[in-house]
């Protein structure tokens, strides 16, 4: 009987594992935010000079997205990374705009950097709340 009672407790703990804080997830998100700030700081230059660093940044975001997909009950974080990749007002769309327009204006560099920081902070804040 006692063993039967322990089973649902264990099941509950396992099912909530995706809502536990992950130092790796937090680090990935903060690293990407820092990396994005550096890449965007170059956006007044010709895109062609920065294709490698843009490619690396995109790969890191994809990697973070895939990592989050492996965690159970992690719908909000997964959806936020998806937004970073797919939304027409988020990081990937900004990098595509830079590529299409060859270079961005100085004012856009400042404004978009602030926006991307705010957007990525949503992911970081949620992970920090899992502590």
């Amino acid at each position, binding site marked *: 009987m006692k063993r039967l*009672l322990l089973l649902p407790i264990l099941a509950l703990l396992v099912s909530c594992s995706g809502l536990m804080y992950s130092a790796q997830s937090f680090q990935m998100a903060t690293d990407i935010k820092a990396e994005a700030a550096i890449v965007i700081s170059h956006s007044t230059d010709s895109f062609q000079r920065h294709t490698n660093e843009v490619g690396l940044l995109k790969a890191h975001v994809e990697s973070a997205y895939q990592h989050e997909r492996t965690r159970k009950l992690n719908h909000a974080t997964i959806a936020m990374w998806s937004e970073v990749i797919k*939304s027409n*007002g988020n990081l990937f769309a900004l990098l595509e705009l830079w590529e299409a327009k060859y270079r961005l*204006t100085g004012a856009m560099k400042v404004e978009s950097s602030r926006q991307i920081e705010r957007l990525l902070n949503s992911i970081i804040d949620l992970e920090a*709340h*899992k502590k």
Partner: protein
Amino acid sequence: MDIQQTLAEIEAQVVALASQMSKRFRDEAIADGRALLVTIREDLTRWLNLLEAGEITADEFQWLLNSSKSQVKMMALRQAGYAALKTKKFVAAIGDIILEAVLKAKQV
């Protein structure tokens, strides 16, 4: 471009997203949404001035505008995440109560 109309659209989006949440977290989400709207209002005014001064292009302005909408969506997702965390803490507390009761029964 009509800033008031754009803000009204964004505000409607915030309220619609918040209304999808359980009542317990709705008020909190709406409060966060309203705070975000203040920031967005300031941003839109600044971006419009930059556009009119020719300091940003129309395409850049469009991305910035879209980024505000993305911000609203990310805020709603973060709120949904917070709600799930609160539920998790509630479930864990129940687990503790059951475990304590089981351990107590074992001692008897």
